[in-house]
Every structure is written in C-alpha cells, then in structure tokens.
C-alpha cells in the first residue's frame, strides 16, 4: 500500500567538500548536476569500495546484490572484473518513469532473479524456501518437516493463528507496469 501522492527520494552526499550542492531529489538532478559536481562519479567511488558486498551470494542462490541491481538497470558490471559502475544509459531511460514505477521495477526484477534460480533460497529442516514465479504472480514456497506434540487448547489456538498469517502473507500478486 502506498500513498496517493507519488513517493520520491533524496540522495545526500554527507560532509561534502568542493561543491555547495549536496542534496539531490530527482533523477534529472543527478544526471544533470552540471560542471560543479559529477554525482555519477561520486556514486562510482562508493560502489568501487563495496565490491565485496555486491558480489555476495544471497542465501543458497547464485543471485548477488550486484546482479539484481544490474538486472534492474541501476548498475553495470565492468568487463572482466568483479566491480560495478552506475549504468548511465539505463538510468537516463528511467527518466520517463515515476519513482513508484522504478521502485516496482526493482522489486519485481529482484524477485525474478531469485525465482529463476533452480535451487532453494535457503534450506530448512527437511525442506527449503524458494521464490516462485507463475504467470504474473510471485510467491514464497516453504517446505519443512516439523514434529508437533499433541496440542493443548492454547497451542492449537496459536497454531491456527500462525497458519492464517502464513496463508495470507505467502503470495504476492503483481500487475505489470504499462505506459
């Protein structure tokens, strides 16, 4: 659920020296910051020091934060290295989209990357958890073997409560973005 007015974002370069403008709130501002400051260069400087994190595998999948950000069009891997840089042409194309559309694109491309991995996201006792994609729906599939003791009235109530929570929260229905 989101607000009626479209959400936006704010990017701030903390304790900036050498330029007066340190806060940016639109993609246009970042791409066209002018000669005073090259925001893309600043972002590349931060990315180059975060290569280890960008290449860390998520759970048991082969997806990494870098590969998800690359599939969402934010980053591009520098050829024959494990380093990433900002994908400027892709970001320039995102100018046509609203902040909500960009955020949803990112969410669903991330889910897509995890759903396309044939192995489990992580293992559970006697089972596993994985993201599944069917049509325009994504979901979380969980399987496990758990041994329950004979329920008392109180534990039965708790079990019913958790079952209803899991059933209501296990499916994420999606609608493709158009226009």
């Amino acid at each position, binding site marked *: *659920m*989101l*607000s*009626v*007015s*479209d*959400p*936006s*974002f*704010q*990017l*701030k*370069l*903390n*304790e*900036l*020296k*050498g*330029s007066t403008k*340190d806060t940016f*709130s639109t993609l246009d501002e970042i791409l066209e910051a002018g000669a005073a*400051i*090259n925001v893309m*260069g*600043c*972002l*590349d*400087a*931060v990315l180059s*020091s*975060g290569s*280890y*994190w960008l290449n860390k595998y998520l759970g048991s999948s082969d997806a990494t934060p870098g590969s998800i950000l690359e599939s969402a069009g934010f980053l591009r891997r520098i050829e024959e290295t494990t380093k990433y840089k900002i994908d400027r042409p892709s970001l320039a194309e995102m100018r046509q989209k609203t902040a909500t559309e960009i955020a*949803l694109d990112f969410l669903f491309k991330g889910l897509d990357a995890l759903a396309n991995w044939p192995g489990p996201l992580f293992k559970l006792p006697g089972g596993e958890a994985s993201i599944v994609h069917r049509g325009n729906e994504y979901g979380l599939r969980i399987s496990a073997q758990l041994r329950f003791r004979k329920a008392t009235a109180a534990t039965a109530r708790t079990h019913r409560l958790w079952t209803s929570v899991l059933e209501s929260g296990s499916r994420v*229905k*999606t*609608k493709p973005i158009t226009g």
Partner: protein
Amino acid sequence: MNRKETVFHLVTSDGEPSGEIGLGVLHSTAVGALKIRAFARIPLASYSKDGSEFLAAKGACTIGVEASRPEGFVSGNVSFSGITVTTVGLAIGKRSLLPA
C-alpha cells in the same frame, strides 16, 4: 537479562516539545572499511502541547541506506564522508498495488 542489541528502535524528535514518535529498524553491516546502515521508520503518532494524533495510516515512512567509511571518498575535485539515500513521502494506506 538479554543484553543483545536489537535492530528495533523507538524513534522520537530529539528533545523537542513537539514532534513524532515512530517505530524504527536499523541494521548496520561493515564490508572492510565500508559501513552500510539500512534503516526504516514507520510514524506512529505526533505530539505537541495541544495533544497527540495517530499517524500510522497517513504519516510518511522513511526507508533508506547510508554508506560511509572513515577516510571518506574522493571523486574529481570533491570529497565526502558518505552517501545517504532515503525515500520521501512514502505513506502507508490509501492505494493498493494489487489489481482490484
């Protein structure tokens, strides 16, 4: 007593007679010298000398990430200690992402 630090926080306006109270989540991780802090805040209520108001359905949430390192970063002629990206105007309620 469990003294392990929690990622959950109660967020208030620092020493102000009016402001907001919210529920916050802060997770910090370090990659070498790079420190990454991911945070989120959901507003619960506003308060002032005239009373308080429940905000959870209309107040703006904040989701953000901050990356910094002690020696800072240099790009061209500028230097900075880190970067913070936060959402602005992301409120709970009113419009569903799901098709009707």
